[in-house]
């Protein structure tokens, strides 16, 4: 960013400062540690100066918001235009109860819905399946058939809200149900806005709700890309997620590297399936974590945006700028929350949310203080939402675009994370791409190693977690945690019985047969799934057909 002469002057003045000012200070008062590190364990220098950003060309590497390489934001006015979407991930028990929570959140100023499904739903089992016992309605809402989906969105106009659904292996089925509910409300599919997570690779890596083996899973994903590009054009067809990779213990640079490597695999699969990159790439979206180290996190978001733009342009020859823009949702870091002194989590969440905003997020979920203990209560969720509203309305950080740009530290860190992420991508390319690197256990092992190191640092007090390994107090057990009534399982079973007794069972069998054929050959499965769910075929039945044809993924158990 500076000419040679200026840089050489800077070097001299810095050395001068070190000799005359710094060394004198150090001799009197040494620093508290021999080494300073980021939350991810990356070294941090005492001072960053213009010398550290000398190799970064402003126009090609940093540039302007809304313009390639989008380091400063995907859009030219950012939060001056409108704030990010405040999207609180919620869902528990029955569709009825979750519907109430959504209406409450919308009433409180939440601007997008985000649906959490229970584990049986995420793994394609109906609530009456033997493996679902004890899990129904626990970590999200139980959806067995279109009937539940109709209740879930009752009274919520689907042409007005955008809805994000955390659903992966059975994403096609839940999307089909959403389209069917909209149709009943008189809303056509081309008006629907929202996102399905639909990111199977990170399920294999870190999150665990996979069903089918890699190849048919990738086919389902590209079928969705193709179908939505024609029928549901405003829908984000995937949310390529680093969130869970980070939760599993990765560093910030690994989060970017592994997530973008997954992204590359999806783009390659879609191109291989015959899709033109600019038809589907604008609908790819991303999902990152916001951890504790504020400036490292801001740098991470900026690095991810720049690196993805370069990959889309240079590697995949995308022509549309929309294909190069990395748009992302952020959730604050669940694994940073402590069960001890849970009110401290409010403070952590606020700072993590600030990092996401300073990093230019498009939407944000803030965790609640009690989530290391149970699902959040309504009071806790309200504080978490208010935290976002305070950042948006009171802190002033939204007044100017990408306010930390030009900080020597943040720019140097952005470049460092970009470079490290690119190294991981190169390594994964050498192994044969993300799916292969997952089969080999490379990505999982890297994450486990980082997680282990992190834990050992906590135990040796190299890493302080306030209230947990320092500043502890005796505490009483927290009261008033949210509990899901075990009766939910029975209620869902009853609902399935009712649905099966009242639907046209012949039509269901026929539609499932057609779906089976589509799975066996190369037809796009989406229209067949849509037909089946409209006849109230259950999620378990639809996934059952696909399980029959595709088989199931077998996880390599690694330690």
């Amino acid at each position, binding site marked *: 960013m500076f000419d040679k002469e200026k840089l050489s002057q800077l070097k001299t003045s810095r050395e001068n400062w070190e000799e005359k000012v710094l060394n004198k200070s150090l001799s009197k008062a040494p620093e508290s540690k021999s080494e300073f590190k980021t939350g991810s364990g990356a070294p941090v220098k005492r001072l960053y100066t213009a010398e550290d950003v000398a190799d970064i060309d402003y126009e090609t590497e940093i540039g302007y918001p809304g313009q390639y390489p989008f380091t400063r934001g995907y859009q030219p006015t950012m939060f001056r235009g409108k704030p990010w979407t405040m999207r609180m991930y919620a869902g528990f028990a029955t569709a009825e109860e979750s519907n109430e929570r959504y209406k409450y959140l919308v009433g409180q100023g939440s601007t997008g819905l985000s649906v959490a499904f229970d*584990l*049986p739903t*995420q*793994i394609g089992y109906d609530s009456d399946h033997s*493996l*679902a*016992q*004890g*899990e129904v309605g*626990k*970590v999200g809402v139980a959806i067995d058939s279109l009937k539940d989906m109709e209740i879930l969105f009752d009274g919520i106009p689907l042409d007005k809200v955008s809805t994000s659904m955390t659903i992966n292996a059975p994403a096609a089925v839940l999307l089909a149900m959403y389209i069917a509910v909209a149709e009943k409300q008189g809303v056509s599919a081309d008006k629907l806005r929202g996102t399905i997570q639909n990111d199977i690779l990170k*399920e294999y890596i*870190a*999150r*665990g*709700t996979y069903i089918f083996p890699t190849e048919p899973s990738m086919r389902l994903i590209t079928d969705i890309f193709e179908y939505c590009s024609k029928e549901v054009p405003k829908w984000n067809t995937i949310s390529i997620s680093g969130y869970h990779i980070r*939760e*599993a*213990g990765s560093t910030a640079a690994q989060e970017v590297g592994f997530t973008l490597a997954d992204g590359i695999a999806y783009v390659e699969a879609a191109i291989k399936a015959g899709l033109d990159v600019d038809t589907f790439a604008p609908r790819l979206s991303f999902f990152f974590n916001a951890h504790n180290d504020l400036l490292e996190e801001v740098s991470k978001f900026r690095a991810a945006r720049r690196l993805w733009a370069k990959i889309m342009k240079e590697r995949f020859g995308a022509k549309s700028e929309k294909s190069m823009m990395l748009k992302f949702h952020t959730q604050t870091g669940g*694994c940073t929350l*402590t*069960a*001890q002194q849970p009110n401290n989590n409010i403070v952590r969440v606020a700072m993590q949310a600030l990092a996401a905003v300073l990093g230019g997020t498009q939407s944000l979920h803030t965790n609640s203080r009690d989530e*290391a*203990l*149970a*699902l959040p209560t309504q009071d806790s969720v309200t504080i978490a939402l208010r935290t976002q509203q305070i950042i948006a309305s009171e802190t002033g950080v939204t007044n100017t675009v990408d306010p930390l740009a030009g900080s020597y530290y943040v720019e140097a860190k952005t470049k460092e994370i970009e470079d490290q992420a690119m190294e991981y991508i190169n390594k994964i390319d050498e192994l044969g791409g993300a799916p292969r690197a997952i089969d080999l256990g490379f990505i999982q092992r890297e994450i*486990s190693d980082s*997680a*282990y190191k992190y*834990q050992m640092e*906590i*135990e040796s007090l190299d890493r302080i977690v306030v209230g*947990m390994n320092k500043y502890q107090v005796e505490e009483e*057990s*927290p009261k008033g*945690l949210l*509990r*899901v009534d*075990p009766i939910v399982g029975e209620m869902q079973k009853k609902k399935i019985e009712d649905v099966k007794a009242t639907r046209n069972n012949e039509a269901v069998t026929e539609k499932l047969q057609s779906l089976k054929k589509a799975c066996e050959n190369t037809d796009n499965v989406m229209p067949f799934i849509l037909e089946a769910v409209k006849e109230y075929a259950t999620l378990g039945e639809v996934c059952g057909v696909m399980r029959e044809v595709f088989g199931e993924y077998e*996880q390599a*158990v690694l*330690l």
Partner: protein
Amino acid sequence: MEKPIRVLIAKPGLDGHDRGAKLIARALRDAGMEVIYTGLRQTPEQIVAAAVQEDVDVVGMSILSGAHNHLFPKVVELLKEQGVNDVLIIGGGVIPDEDIPGLKEAGLAEIFTPGTTTTQMIEYIKNNLKR
């Protein structure tokens, strides 16, 4: 030489959060124990079969989905049915304090909640073996 302690670390139920389970498994192994990790989505039947087959001294289970009250006691029950009475059975995860007495009554020797260190876990196992 003393026979090493054998531990089965298991993930019952459907949740995929195995950061904790893997950390514990690794720490116990580094402490000289022989550790078998089941991987995700194990039914109580599968866990008990593995425990019997591997002849373990300890079964450690981790659940973060809230299904602990259903699944932990099931494993204890099935182990008893198999005539296994000398295995130390412990659990961990996101488990509300008020659930712990019930789980102990059901036969879990101890429940470890967030914030527990691997060192505490190692000490506990060494001091509480049943055989």
